[in-house]
């Protein structure tokens, strides 16, 4: 038998054995078994089993590009004499081959997780002897998917907020991120209206989308949404509205090499309208420094201040612009109870000037009396941030049947995060309650 014939037989044998293994694996996932015989598609379907569909798309694209450049090399080798072009083609083919390999590893490691298989030996078997691994897992009765996400996410409300002409109207249909290879929905179906003069707590477990939510609301990261501030669409008129919105980010994004006074003053000059003359700006800066207890530190260098002090500088930088909507992402992180309370009291006072103040904090209970309302975001079964509650703080306690707000977080956190895993239940429950109110 000629070598080429032998190779062909071996390739066909390998193809059928691998297909047979996948045929049985797909059966375990209730996926159409016929896909097991169709090249490329079967890998994509396998990645569905591994809950790694995005990686599979990338792998398929890399395989295609690697093959195209491989064929191009054969063609170029025959007809093109330029060594530089040949080298370029080889390098590209090699790069895509490496990428394809990496994505395969990601899909196979996902498969090991879904099958609850620990250790590296199965992963190596899948990488280097995929046919053997597919046959064993396909025909072996003890190999069953154990870590599949079979929960169903809460239904969508299909709600839209009515425009009131004042306050903040939030109508988020969804907020997605990623490329064509990896798309993830971070937020979905969040509809609420915040009245002026309210101090609102934004609550949610890690990864529930709190920062994404405030970024979407402030227009910094646009979502598929309608955000209306005092009757004006934030997304459509962002250039005008950006001066009405103050957003203090989670991290202290300040220049450490400048003085406190200059830091606040530069922001005032940047953000205050021309209605303020030089004296007006100076007066405003001094007023803000006074309000946040920074007057005596004006000439001090920012980088040499304590964490709490830098946090106050960061807030002053936004507050000096007189924002109508003031959003603060964990302004009390790293502050002791007394400092945190004094800061929150200040924010409470600001809200009483008729502004809307939204605060994200992980330690809400120590200052909860200062908040009017609470927004609770929860991760649904698809790991997407959804609205689980919005309303007065007292009602929230009754709604979740918890005495503390940290208890509320525990209710909605997923079981693997140490919570009760009742997020979807509470999302639907809240929607029913809202519809009942109507």
């Amino acid at each position, binding site marked *: 038998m000629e070598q080429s014939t032998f190779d062909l037989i071996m390739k066909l044998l390998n193809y059928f054995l691998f297909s047979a293994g996948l045929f049985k694996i797909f059966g375990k996932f209730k996926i159409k078994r016929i896909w097991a015989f169709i090249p490329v598609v079967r890998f994509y379907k396998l990645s569905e089993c591994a809950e790694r569909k995005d990686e599979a798309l990338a792998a398929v694209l890399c395989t295609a590009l690697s093959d195209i450049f491989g064929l191009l090399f054969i063609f170029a080798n025959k007809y093109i004499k330029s060594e530089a072009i040949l080298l370029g083609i080889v390098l590209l083919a090699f790069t895509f081959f490496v990428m394809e390999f990496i994505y395969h590893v990601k899909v196979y490691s996902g498969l090991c997780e879904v099958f609850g298989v620990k250790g590296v030996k199965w992963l190596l078997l899948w990488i280097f002897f995929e046919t053997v691994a597919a046959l064993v897992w396909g025909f072996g009765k003890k190999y069953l998917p154990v870590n599949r996400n079979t929960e169903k996410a809460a239904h969508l409300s299909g709600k839209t907020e009515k425009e009131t002409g004042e306050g903040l109207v939030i109508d988020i249909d969804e907020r997605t991120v990623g490329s064509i290879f990896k798309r993830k929905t971070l937020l979905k179906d969040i509809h609420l209206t915040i009245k002026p003069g309210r101090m609102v707590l934004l609550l949610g477990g890690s990864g529930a989308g709190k920062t994404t939510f405030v970024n979407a609301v402030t227009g910094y990261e646009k979502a598929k949404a309608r955000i209306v501030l005092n009757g004006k669409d934030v997304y459509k008129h962002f250039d005008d509205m950006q001066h009405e919105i103050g957003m203090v980010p989670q991290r202290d994004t300040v220049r450490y090499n400048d*003085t406190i006074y200059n830091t606040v003053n530069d922001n005032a000059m940047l953000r205050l309208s021309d209605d303020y003359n030089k004296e007006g700006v100076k007066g405003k800066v001094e007023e803000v420094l006074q309000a946040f207890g920074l007057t005596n530190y004006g000439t001090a260098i920012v980088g040499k201040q304590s964490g709490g002090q830098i946090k106050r500088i960061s807030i002053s930088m936004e507050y000096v612009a007189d924002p109508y909507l003031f959003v603060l992402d964990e302004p009390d992180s790293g502050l002791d109870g007394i400092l945190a309370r004094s800061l929150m009291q200040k924010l409470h006072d600001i809200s009483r000037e008729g502004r809307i103040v939204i605060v994200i904090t992980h330690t809400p209970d120590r200052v909860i009396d200062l908040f009017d309302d609470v927004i609770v975001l929860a991760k649904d079964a698809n790991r997407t941030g959804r609205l689980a509650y919005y309303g007065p703080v007292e009602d929230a306690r009754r709604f979740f049947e918890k005495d503390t707000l940290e208890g509320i977080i525990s209710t909605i956190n997923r079981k693997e995060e140490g919570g009760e895993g009742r997020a979807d239940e509470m999302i639907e429950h809240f929607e029913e309650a809202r519809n009942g109110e109507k």
Partner: protein
Amino acid sequence: MEKSKSYRGRIRQVPIYLGKCFRAFVYMDDWKVIPMAAIIGGLVSFVACQYVFKTMEGTVNGGFALVCVCIWNGFFNSIQVICRERDVIKREHRSGMHITSYVSAHVIYQAFICMLQVTVIMAIGHATGIQFPQASVVMGYFPADLWITLFLTTYAADMLSLMISSIVTNSTAAMTVMPFVMIIQLVCSGIMFPLTGRVEIIKNFTIAKWGIESLCSIGNFNSLPMISLWNQIFKYRNFEIGGTKPIEEITNYMMDNNLQDEFMKVTAKYSQNPSYASTPDHVLRCWGVLILMSFVAALIAVLFLKNIDKDKR
């Protein structure tokens, strides 16, 4: 809410950021780039610039060393300037800061830094033995020609690194990319390693090429003596052919009749390079290209920074 309030525009925002830059010069020890430039400049001019503007070889080698110093200084001036404060820029951009104002402030500030560095390098170089020719090609005063050449070379490198700093998202990436760009700038300039064929065009995109052309032009390269051939011949003067030493006879004859200088000038004629022509047009062309490079780099920096809102958290 009031409608159509006006806020500081692009031009009025520049002084805000210019102020920040100059405060960084004091508070953040940016001033250290000046003594650093003095040390590097002094070291290089002491080692490699003894024959610059005196002989053809000395001008090319010393000029290349000076251009290396300029590119080195320029690169280090701003390679981390933007990427290290990307989060702050993003925050300020959302608050109404114009990217053009921000970059313009850096463009002005870096010009100031480069001017100081070049002045210091020239002073140190002169003190360590670089002798300035009397003739000037453009400005009527040689040190002015040299100052402008070194400044534009440093500034073009500075703007290129500012551009890199605006493209990459962190300091680590900036410091990884920088050596590659620097190597391309120096190796592909065609000065030390001549490029031929299709790749020759690459050298036109290097700062070093235009810097060295300008230096050689203002140094009147084509009228300088060439010493390397004389030195080579002199080295082989003991070479014997059939019991005689013909090379020694020739060198002795030339030395006895004071013909070495004449020989060096004659041999130099064969090494003249039209790219180093000492004409105002040529020097101005080199300067123009360096200015254009700086402008394009700053423009690219603006274009890339405009997308800063898309930065991931």
